[in-house]
């Protein structure tokens, strides 16, 4: 594992215009706001946060599939270096083969009229990455084997498959172009627990075998804790904390991370604690509160928090945290 950053963003913002009324100012959704993050090559990087926090939007911006309103996204795999906000058409075409997306819904993602072989082969054909049908077939068989798909099944149609098998087909399709960077957006959310473990294990082993860098987006913190080596937490379009997985789960430095962790229902029936529950709901991204975006729900908020937005700072131990009070809160937030 090398620590060179494959993806670096600086102050990245993605704003969507809202179809506003005739009167009043035009509104925008600040889906991602001022995010600076580094995803080291070879990492299995987790991205968590509640619904609407901007995870999908950030993932898509890194794939150049969402508009980059402000800031920079740099992709650098040692072979090529792209500045995604200013990338030209030819380079973008090359980038598409280097960066891929795995979707959440294994039922919606696959065209019902194509055979499994054609579904997996399509990216190669669209991007013109192979010279002959024989070469395409060879690549399809190779990736299908790596994804533990039965080669006999390549001639079938996707409706014949269960959720877990469909997700393996989607993974094969995403990896057939031999990308370096893969965004997996809620890739196991639609699967039953008994099947989910199989897909997670497959993703981890593919990452090692193919030397991939993953951005693994999930709202399930227990899953992220098990598969990711590094985690970033988002709230209302902002990055609030990043840290190596174990540090994050043992010693969260941001009050929101702490609250997320305590909200996970424990598997122990004798541990029915209800301490440190968060009140209220996530504010609307069209009308975010001033100051720290979390102050409306934070038990530690002060006047400064209500007025001034904290910056992401290095808090040691590999943590980066965006909270005015992280120094004083250290012990208070540790998980026991």
């Amino acid at each position: 594992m090398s620590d060179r950053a494959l993806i670096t963003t600086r102050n990245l913002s993605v704003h969507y215009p809202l179809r506003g009324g005739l009167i009043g100012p035009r509104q925008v959704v600040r889906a991602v706001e001022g995010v600076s993050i580094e995803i080291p090559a070879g990492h299995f990087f987790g991205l968590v946060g509640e619904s609407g926090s901007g995870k999908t939007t950030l993932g898509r911006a890194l794939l150049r599939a969402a508009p980059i309103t402000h800031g920079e996204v740099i992709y650098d795999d040692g072979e090529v270096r792209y500045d995604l906000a200013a990338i030209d058409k030819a380079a973008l075409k090359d980038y598409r083969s280097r960066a891929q997306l795995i979707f959440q819904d294994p039922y919606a993602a696959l065209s019902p009229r194509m055979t499994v072989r054609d579904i997996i082969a399509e990216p190669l054909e669209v991007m013109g990455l192979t010279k002959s049908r024989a070469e395409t077939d060879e690549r399809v068989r190779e990736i299908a084997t790596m994804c533990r798909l039965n080669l006999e099944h390549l001639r079938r149609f996707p409706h014949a498959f269960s959720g877990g098998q469909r997700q393996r087909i989607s993974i094969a399709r995403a990896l057939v172009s031999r990308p370096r960077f893969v965004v997996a957006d809620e890739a196991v959310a639609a699967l039953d627990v008994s099947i989910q473990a199989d897909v997670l294990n497959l993703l981890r082993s593919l990452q090692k075998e193919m030397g991939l860098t993953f951005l693994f987006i999930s709202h399930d913190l227990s899953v992220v804790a098990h598969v990711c080596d590094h985690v970033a937490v988002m709230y209302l379009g902002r990055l609030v904390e990043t840290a190596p997985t174990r540090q994050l789960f043992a010693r969260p430095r941001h009050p929101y991370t702490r609250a997320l962790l305590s909200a996970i229902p424990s598997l122990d029936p004798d541990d029915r604690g209800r301490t440190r529950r968060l009140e209220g709901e996530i504010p609307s991204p069209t009308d975010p509160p001033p100051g720290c975006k979390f102050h409306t729900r934070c038990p530690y908020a002060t006047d400064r928090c209500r007025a001034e937005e904290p910056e992401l700072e290095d808090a040691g131990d590999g943590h980066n945290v965006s909270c005015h009070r992280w120094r004083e809160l250290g012990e208070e937030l540790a998980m026991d």
Partner: protein
Amino acid sequence: MTRLLDVENLTLQFDTDEGRITAVDDVSFSIEQGQVMGLVGESGSGKSVTAKSLMKLNARNAVYGPQSRIILHLDDGPVDVMTLRSAREMQLVRGGAISMIFQEPMASFAPAITIGSQMVEQLLIHTDMNKKQARELSIEMLARVGISDAARRFDQYAFELSGGMRQRAMIAMALSTRPRLLIADEPTTALDVTIQAQVIDLMKDLVAEFGMAIIFITHDLGVIAQTADTVAVMYLGRLVEQGPVREVIRTPAHPYTRGLIAALPDLENLDKPLTPVPGDIPSPLERPTGCVFNTRCSVAIEGRCQHEVPQFMQLDDHHRVACHLAARERGAA
């Protein structure tokens, strides 16, 4: 403890274009008053249709087995829901003795009617309140589940509320008629964890206050561990294990329950490998013979599990399991 519900030999099939499929196969269980029963199982295992059977709410193509009995023990004596026919008779259970929070959030609220009018209408049918009293109680219930500005929300439509708010409103509506049994079908699955935690706390408070029994359906064993007294595990339409929540989670006896727990990421133990249950859930059109789990069971007994349906065996007073191997280990076979 006082018995509230006995489900006996519930069998439910659906007529479909591809033939008759079995969704629930000979399921029996009981619930005591004030008890919370968790119902878990993979998608398609029959949790929702079992729950809907308790109010005979399944689609028209449903065919109930002739042995099926659903006995509700009400103050005026037992009622077999299976024998209720007319809409009037059904009112006794639907929204009366039993309320349900549906898995499809929009199924609980009609889109074109305000939340308030729906709550009032229910109360007018099921209680002898007048309109004014019904309105007051509804607003009180909305406030009770933590909806701020309840009087204003009363006049809103379901789509105007956030997910967490809508879930609270559904709980308020389901509880306003003071049912004896609340069926909550995945009430927190679509919610964020911080909101899920709020809703779970709310439901616990309401059980303590109202003393009704709950059937809590979920995929999430953590949610079960946090809310339920007992748990029933379903697989492909069959109940495979049932018992007190501590025992089933700590000492699961059925290979499927064990597999489910082994597959679950556990925050307390990040080094635990995630072990999937091998294979895939068979289609309901290809129900395995013998034990329904035998196509995925790594400890299946050759020549037996494929042919013979395992019957329930008591492990102790409350914990029971349907598995040939568990029975053999017990020396009971």
